[in-house]
């Protein structure tokens, strides 16, 4: 469904303000309308804060949301 490559190099430049570390790519479970999907997304290695970039939110993620809504 969703391209597991949800991370671009520029996403990993962001730093978690709470933990003062850079984001790393790692698996994340997403849920919509009762469906769970696991993808790799940038996240804080300490607190787990996940970044959904604009490109992912308005691109692949929106596509999957639409597909699940019409399922």
């Amino acid at each position: 469904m969703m391209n597991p490559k949800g991370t671009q190099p520029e996403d990993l430049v962001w730093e978690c303000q709470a933990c003062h570390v850079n984001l790393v790519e790692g698996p994340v479970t997403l849920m919509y309308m009762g469906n769970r999907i696991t993808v790799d997304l940038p996240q804080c290695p300490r607190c787990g804060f996940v970044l959904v970039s604009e490109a992912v939110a308005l691109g692949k993620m929106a596509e999957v949301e639409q597909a699940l809504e019409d399922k």
Partner: protein
Amino acid sequence: MDQKALRLLESRCIQEEPPACQCACPLHVDVRTFSRCMVQGLWEEAWKTLKKTMPFPGILGRICDAPCRDVCRRKEAGDAVEIGLLERACVHTPAPVQRMPVLPRKRQRVAAVGSALSSLTAAWDLARKGYNVTLLEPSDRMGVYLFEIPDEVLPRSVIETEMEALFVLGVETVCRFSLDWDALEEIRRRFDAVYLGLDGLTFWGECDTGEPWPDAALTRISGLEGFFTGGLALEGNSFSPVWRSAEGRWAATTIDRCLQGVSRTAGREKDRPYSSRLYTAMDDVSVLPAITPQDSVAGYTENEAVQEAGRCLQCECLECVKVCPYLKHFGGYPRKYAREIYNNDSIVMGSHKANRLINSCSLCGLCEVVCPENFAMQTLCLKARQDMVGKKRMPPSAHEFALMDMQFSNSDRFAMTRPDPETGIASHLFFPGCQLCASAPEQVRDVYAHLRRVLPLKSVGIMLGCCNAPAFWAGDDALFQKEFSALKEQWTALGCPQIIPACATCYQMFKCHLPEADVISLWQVLEGAGLPAGALPLKLSAPPAIHDPCTTRHEPEIHDSVRRLLNRLEQPFEELKGNRSHTACCGFGGLMQNANPELAGSVVRHLAHQHPADYVTYCAMCRDNLAASGKRALHLLDMIFPSPDEADPAGRRRPGWSQRRENRSWLKNILQQTLWKESPENMEPYENIALSVSPEVQQILENRRILISDIQRVIYHAEDSGQKLCHPDTGHFKAAFRLYNATFWVEYSISENGFTIHNAYSHRMEILRKGP
């Protein structure tokens, strides 16, 4: 909807009905397709089209008397299309090589007596159905009178080639068949059925075949058992070759059915010529006379034929599709859409492909008005939405933003019901509607003050809130009933005053869902009670064109009232072609704008392009949507209550989603403070966050339907919790917060007076995140 209801609904859309020419043709030749092929120079395809229903096209194509011309719609703008001459031109080109499908051979034997067109047709049809057919010709030559037709019209070689096809099918032929009563009895014994082709027999005039059957016109059953007759074409032109041929065909169908032991008439209502239900508008058709062939003996040249075929109107209906960008957008017409919507509801697995079709309709009802059969797409779509909500299958994104907006309007931030501030009673209740308050709150305040001045007894109350149309349009009946009941309770508590809505949608909601209420539009009230002293015509370069909101479609009194108000203001105006009952939607109706913003954009542009002048309307959403599309548009209130601060009200921009909410709250606060001396509602802590948003970012927020309050809440959460990201190069922060059913992301920086917003977006998917 069950299959039966679907078929009934489908039958009301006539787009797929065959055109008049095809219905009138006894052989039901697809004349429209034939003409289309001819105009494109697709001669082989044209041939094949004839061959589909016409036996011996080489012969009939040359001598067809084209009874279709009598009903050709082209007659209303020139002469009927010369189909006979076109057929002739077509069959003069070489016949395409084509295999004819033949059913497996049966054991039964059928005799066809005579060998004129009706017998040849009966033999052709029966042989193709697998029967053992024998043609019995009394003279010494098969084809009889066909050979009497002049050779330049029907060459002998053509007759022989065409009849060759019968021999290929295995039809046996007997010439010099001695036809008398004894012979008839003999063939009746030898054959399972006998067809008597009266167009090729002289013997018949002296015989009595008994009383014909009541359905003989169709079935061709004679009074003699086992005998079927045809070919005299007494109901058509008795010399009509195409009628004679058709009678042979109808007899062949009956013979087949009798021998198969099935009903001889069931499902044959359209075997004979019938009237077409297809409607074709002739308004924009220019007059074109028929092309006369240069050489009347040789007929049309290829070029002449193409020109003549080009006069065919290619009759179709599509009345609704012509006026509705929504119906056009999905590439079909209501009959197809009804099937798609039915399938969408029925499928268990797979994608619900019609969700967007169902949710994009503006429910404006124009299709029903223009449809010759009053097909109402809005009823179909609304019912489908209600079913989807009922089955919990409505895509959440389709209507959520509008329903959240409705919820805001019904919350303490806007909703308020009060009797007259001076007397504490309410014989009238002004209901301005949430969108007018969102667009022009000062005018609403002025209207209320004016109504209190001009209506007697100082008893005009006000109700701020939403009429709950969004819930109704979204198909969410439970929500609609809940919210509307609350509204009704407040109205009842005020003593059931007369309701004065300013918005046409609110007017409809009250009229349909609160039938016990006395409802009168603001425009009718103003017409009766008088206009304020400051009411003025506007200094426009040209008279504006009036646009009637689609929810007034069936309210001629409101249309008249608004026009009389304009006259009273001495404001000249133009009428749009699509006005009053034929008015078009602005793209907001039915929540189209939510479910399909791109389509809503084309819909409003379609409306805006109807007339070059500025528009004047009396619905805040129509005005704002037109303004957002770049069209200069006025609200009628801009003339009745002109604002001294607004030099060019037609050029006023549409207030954005956030501004609309602010305007509503402002109105409530100002009324509370000035009329009821009440203190304003408390603000939420996040509302104190000051934001700086550039016009570019403002546009992004608008397109993505992200509110300033959403951003304030994200920043409030981020700054409070410290949970945010920082970009080392730009110093920008990025934070997220989940509100309602979406996660909002904001990229911002801290500025002197608050926060500067650089970007924002949202997604509906939820991140399931474990802690560290």
